[in-house]
């Protein structure tokens, strides 16, 4: 497993991740924990849990890095790690912003009318 590391990601500034399965497992667990702060009926929680569980299952079942990348169809495994990190920070911020509440304020009647 350790000997099968690829030489380079091909992307500037993105180092090859050693042990990406472990890294992704930690990130996905953290995301699911962060999502617990969001009410169960919020659409963001529903869809994000769906995405995370799907990818988590893929990570758990597929030990080979190349095949995992092909299954996820989301670029290289290092990019998938970056996506998971941003999703984690987003989930924490969403718990603060609470965007599932109803509309804050209606716009004035002709605000979005075009042509005027």
């Amino acid at each position: 497993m350790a000997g099968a590391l690829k030489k380079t990601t091909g992307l500037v500034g993105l180092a090859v991740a050693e042990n990406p399965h472990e890294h992704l497992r930690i990130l996905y667990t953290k995301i699911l924990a962060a999502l617990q702060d969001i009410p169960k009926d919020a659409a963001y929680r529903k869809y994000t849990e769906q995405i995370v569980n799907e990818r988590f299952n893929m990570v758990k079942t597929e030990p080979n890095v190349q095949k995992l990348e092909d299954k996820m169809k989301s670029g290289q495994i290092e990019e998938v790690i970056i996506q998971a990190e941003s999703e984690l920070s987003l989930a924490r911020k969403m718990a603060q912003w609470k965007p599932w509440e109803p509309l804050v304020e209606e716009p004035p009647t002709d605000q979005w009318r075009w042509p005027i």
Partner: protein
Amino acid sequence: MLAAALGLARAGLRAAARPAVLLHARFEGSSTTETRPTVRPKDEVAQNQLCAFGEYVAEILPKYIQQVQVTCFNELEIFIHPDGIVPILTFLRDHTNAQFKSLADLTAIDVPTRQYRFEIVYNLLSLRFNSRIRVKTYTDELTPVDSAVSVHQAANWYEREVWDMYGIFFANHPDLRRILTDYGFEGHPFRKDFPLSGYVEIIVLNFPSRSVSTGKKE
């Protein structure tokens, strides 16, 4: 003879750069007249995909999104309340299904007849999914708006330009000052009530190089 041959060779090279088909097609008479109107064919697939994504985003963020539309040119537009600028831009940048990592443009529109006369427009591009989205907010002359610099670094100079040209103040901007107008310039030129040739006349001298205001005011 040699010169003529060289000239022909040069002309031949130049003609070869353009495909030979073009050279013939230009002078061909129209044997069959085209009767179909020249309108863009409807791309149903792209339209449906964009509609579906628009509904997805509106379902996740109902607190700030007032309206979602897909134009006839297959462009997705989201109209939001100004409080939701940072949440929505962060969502579009960070969410796995969105990943709009690139802020392509940040501009404003002035419609003086409206209550909130300025409309701020953010154009985002997703490199992962090769798609674009437009986010629009509104404000008037005196209400500040949250800066997008915390989400996209590219917004820095764009917001300076919007401040300089329209007078829209961005709160939490690291360095909001004029960027295009002259140093002592008064006014915000892109507003609809600012005249085309401005208020003050300027003479630009080359020797010595300086610009002098004539003091004549319109």
